[in-house]
């Protein structure tokens, strides 16, 4: 990816947060099993990540990397508080179901790692544009995986029953692992799989 020309749209497909970099996959595997869950996670992830990265971009660059990382995480933890309060109003039944994964969105890899290694090296308008497409890339894949898992794992869509033979295991975390693995393979195939072997270079740390 690094050899290719950079584009603010990269995060949507070419450098997708979930399928390419395997970042923020825990909530996808565990909570991404119904459309309602997915919408709550998408809302929280998008709001926390966008506001946190934009606010963190004002942190002085002359501070040591470790201190900046801690400040970025602290900013995200503060942004999390109003986001959660609003989420309780929008998705009252979903928030208890998402459990620990809701607060964990505040310490996601985009905020902790990508800010310093990628976003803060850009000019502000370019950074915001790129960030929006990284967020949209996550949102899109989260939505696709959740819809597939709800239809084929629960036999419902947005909690409306669909007359379909379903595989209950698909809605469990192990079903999430397997489906995500298959979608990653499909994504690589679509991006000319032979070019990408191993793909370990893009691994995130979170």
């Amino acid at each position: 990816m690094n050899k290719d020309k950079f584009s603010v749209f990269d995060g949507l497909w070419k450098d997708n947060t979930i399928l390419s970099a395997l970042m923020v996959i825990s909530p996808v595997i565990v909570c991404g099993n119904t459309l309602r869950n997915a919408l709550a996670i998408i809302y929280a992830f998008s709001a926390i990540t966008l506001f946190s990265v934009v606010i963190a971009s004002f942190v002085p660059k002359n501070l040591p990397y470790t201190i900046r990382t801690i400040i970025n995480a602290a900013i995200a933890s503060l942004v999390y508080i109003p986001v959660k309060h609003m989420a309780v109003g929008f998705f009252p039944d979903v928030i208890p179901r998402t459990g620990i994964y809701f607060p964990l969105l505040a310490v996601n890899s985009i905020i902790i790692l990508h800010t310093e290694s990628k976003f803060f090296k850009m000019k502000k308008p370019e950074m915001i544009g790129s960030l929006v497409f990284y967020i949209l890339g996550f949102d899109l894949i989260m939505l696709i995986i959740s819809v597939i898992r709800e239809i084929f794992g629960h036999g419902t869509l947005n909690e409306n029953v669909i007359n379909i033979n379903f595989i209950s295991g698909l809605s469990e975390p192990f079903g999430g692992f397997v489906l995500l693995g298959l979608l990653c393979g499909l994504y690589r195939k679509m991006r000319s799989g032979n070019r990408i072997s191993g793909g370990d270079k893009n691994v995130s740390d979170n």
Partner: protein
Amino acid sequence: MFLITELIAFLCGNLILNQALGISTMFTAAKDRKNLIGTAAVITIFTTFASAFACFIDLIFPQTDIRLLLYVVAVGIIYIGLLFGLKKFSGKNFVKYRKYIHISAFNCAVMGTVFTIGGTAENAGFFRYISAGIEAGAGFVLASLILTAAYKRLDSEKVPPSFRGFPAMLVYLGIISMALYALK
């Protein structure tokens, strides 16, 4: 028989295989033994000390949204402390080993452990928090060993290029996770 039951209980409580926490760090750790030892040791230190801090945080601020910020501050203190400790004791090797601290600090495995313990060990006492932190670290080691055992095969020429590496590993972890689900 008792040991087998304990082992099954330990596996079933594994945060990585059951809750998908810290997966990508585990992929990094499973690449070779050196990485595995370094990452697992640092993750265990983080989960143990962070759990100790969490005990006091949960005691003073039970079930409040500000806990996340306090957990972040606690992990931040451990992060800085570990870097200072490493610099003091490792000398020239500081640059070589500090990556393990950087990749572990705000990792989902660490933050997820603190939240999970907070949900299950409240009012259980300081030592329950500490033991839960050590268990989480040991769980990371175990899950990494399970992945290391298959890493070379899943990343070999025999696997189709599109599925080589991470996609195959995710499917493999899914199968292990399914086996644990059946054991529960």
